[in-house]
């Protein structure tokens, strides 16, 4: 073992507090860095990947069945700019009521829900299967609906219940029980739920339209394609359109919201790590000045002394980095699972290159920080270092010490108060570290209390519908539904605002619905249920 190795080993072993602090600080930095970078990578174009995998619809057109026949709709697949089409599918707005507990002997839920009750309205599309052309819906759980009374819910809907749960759906006077037979995901956001064409008819939606899904030759030319399709159909047939860019924007809004926070946390953790490692190494140098003098007296060169102190930091830092790597990868799994749940194309593990980059980056930062702090050890003159404890040295902070001595405080306290002024850089680093630590905790606490996912579960088991007279307007704050509501999701398209919905006070306007700033995404005209619906 070389002299340097022996000195480093003894320093690491005997200065165990420093070793433990550096290990923990580095582990925390690597963990936070991995989570931040891993989630950032995961949030990089997940929509695009999912959209490509599902052969998503670039353009979705809702038509009025009274003004365009299914044959005319089918013929639009030959329109200029259209590469591929699917549909027409029947689409209706259907009111849905979460399942109610049914005690033994109680009447069915359909009988216990007041006639004038209101529930959330969702878009139900009629499709006989997940499809093989445009918008290949991914069945996540269960099976596809095969008969009336069965429904497949979108995984992005805020409604969650086990497969097999029975819901009540439909307008007052025509409510019917339906069973959830599966959960599916449509990245193109073409519907909130799917059933068979006969099943949609049985739900008696107050409004019904036909939905055509298109893939375009040029995905960027959605306006031209929309105009071409509109022109190919009788006047007024197109009730609403939705393009993939708007859907993507909305989807990315959800993830992009977290990007600055992820970057912020990653940056803060790295900064804290730098400050902690720098402070610890600077403290080690400051408290072992005499040792440095001895080493130099024995013939250690300044570079060797610096290397010794850097290595003393790097040994625990490497251990901490490996621990942080393991912890980061383990913690990332449930977090990435959420992203996977949203898009279905996100890997549940952190990319290996992210591991390498974060590990190398943090160790590099630790090395540079430790080298900067240990640089003083290299610059320290041996004769001065050896004189420590034998001769008084002029130190900074003498004025502060004099002032503190005059304060009406116990002498030990006043001496302690003056101490930071003798090492202002280290004291400043400590203040900054504490400040950033407090900022991190505040930020995290604020996010935790404000994020929808962290809100407390419903305090009352009451269903979300309410009776006439007390029905909430769309602007009312949404009440939490029973434990079934688990995720914020874009609202289902609804007919005009008389139908109250939970979970979202006012739907966003879309470019295709310019007439009403607060209009729902689909601006369909109520029609009698019926019509085609094949996939």
């Amino acid at each position: 073992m070389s002299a340097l190795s022996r000195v480093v080993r003894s320093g690491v072993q005997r200065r165990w507090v420093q070793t433990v602090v550096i290990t923990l600080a580095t582990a925390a930095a690597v963990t936070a860095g991995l989570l931040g970078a891993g989630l950032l990578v995961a949030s990089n174009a997940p929509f695009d990947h999912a959209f490509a995998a599902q052969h998503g619809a670039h353009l979705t057109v809702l038509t009025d069945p009274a003004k365009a026949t299914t044959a005319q709709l089918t013929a639009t697949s030959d329109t200029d700019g259209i590469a591929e089409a699917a549909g027409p599918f029947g689409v209706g707005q259907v009111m849905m009521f979460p399942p109610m507990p049914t005690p033994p002997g109680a009447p069915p839920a359909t009988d216990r829900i007041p006639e004038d009750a209101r529930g959330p309205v969702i878009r139900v599309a009629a499709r006989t299967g997940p499809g093989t052309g445009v918008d290949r819906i991914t069945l996540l759980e269960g099976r596809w609906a095969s008969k009336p009374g069965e429904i497949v819910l979108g995984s992005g809907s805020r409604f969650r219940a086990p497969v097999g749960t029975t819901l009540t759906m439909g307008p007052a006077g025509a409510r019917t029980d339906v069973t959830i037979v599966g959960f599916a995901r449509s990245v193109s956001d073409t519907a909130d739920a799917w059933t068979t064409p006969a099943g949609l008819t049985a739900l008696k939606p107050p409004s019904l339209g036909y939905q055509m899904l298109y893939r375009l030759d040029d995905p960027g030319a959605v306006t031209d394609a929309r105009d071409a399709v509109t022109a190919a159909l009788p006047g007024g047939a197109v009730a609403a359109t939705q393009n993939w860019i708007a859907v993507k924007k909305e989807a990315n809004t959800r993830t992009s919201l977290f990007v600055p926070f992820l970057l912020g946390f990653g940056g803060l953790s790295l900064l804290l790590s730098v400050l902690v490692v720098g402070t610890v190494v600077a403290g080690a140098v400051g408290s072992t000045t005499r040792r440095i003098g001895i080493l130099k007296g024995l013939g250690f060169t300044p570079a060797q002394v610096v290397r010794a102190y850097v290595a003393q930091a790097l040994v625990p830092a490497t251990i901490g980095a490996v621990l942080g790597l393991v912890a980061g990868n383990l913690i990332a799994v449930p977090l990435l699972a959420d992203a996977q749940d949203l898009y279905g194309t996100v890997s549940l593990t952190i990319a290996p290159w992210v591991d390498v980059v974060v590990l190398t980056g943090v160790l590099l930062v630790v090395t540079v920080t430790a080298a900067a702090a240990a640089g003083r050890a290299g610059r320290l003159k041996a004769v001065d270092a050896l004189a420590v404890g034998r001769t008084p040295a002029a130190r900074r902070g003498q004025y502060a010490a004099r002032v503190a001595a005059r304060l009406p405080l116990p002498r030990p306290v006043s001496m302690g108060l003056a101490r930071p002024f003798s090492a202002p850089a280290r004291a400043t680093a400590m203040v900054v570290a504490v400040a950033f630590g407090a900022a991190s905790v505040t930020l995290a606490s604020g996010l935790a209390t404000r994020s929808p996912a962290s809100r407390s579960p419903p305090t009352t088991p009451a269903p979300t519908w309410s009776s006439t007279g007390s029905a909430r307007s769309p602007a009312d704050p949404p009440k939490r539904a029973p434990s079934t509501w688990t995720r914020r999701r874009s609202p289902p398209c609804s007919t005009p605002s008389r139908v109250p919905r939970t979970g979202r006070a006012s739907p966003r306007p879309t470019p295709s619905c310019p007439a009403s700033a607060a209009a729902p995404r689909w601006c369909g005209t109520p029609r009698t249920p019926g019509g085609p619906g094949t996939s």
Partner: protein
Amino acid sequence: MTTEPLIALQHVTRRYDSGPPALDDVSLTVRTGEAVAILGPSGSGKSTLLNLVAGLDKPTEGTVTVGGTRVDTLSEAASARYRRARVGLVFQFFNLLDDLTVFDNVVLPAQLAGNARGETTRRATELLTALGIDRHARAYPGRLSGGERQRVAVARSLMNRPALLLADEPTGALDTASGAEVRRLLTGLHADGQTIVLVTHDRTLAAECATRTIEVVDGRIATDTAVSAATR
């Protein structure tokens, strides 16, 4: 005694900030095989002189040459290599690394010099045995008495067979019995031909070990006296 000059200081002055110089125009030669005791009151410049010879400090003016090497012009790294190869240092407060065992402290200079492991172990064992501290080889310095620690420091300083042994108040922190041990040790080393320069207040040490005593007063050499064997 050989006549080869090992140390040569020419018109050396060392000033610290304002005030009178710690050393003022000192010229001095020490020949190989000599044992020189530098005496003087506190603050007279004895330790400064020793630090200049060790390459731990640089003169403000003048030249310091040791074994043909201009020590005053060496860089920090070159000074370190110079000390490693040619100088053994013994300090008043031992300056052992308390997180290394006695054995590890002793072998450190040899490891730093890149000596072979077997030779290093052999030399360390030989020194520890000769100095009567071999039974403490695996102990940490904190468990030893002052005299034992100083013997460890001497063993460490001799590890690379330095041409020059510099000792700064080697008995200053020791009780009478331990001081006598160290005096015997240094006397024995000089008898074996080791060139020694020691700084001390201890006139007994100077009388027993030194072949020459130099008295420094206010940064200048006041007396430079050869000590006869009969006197010792």
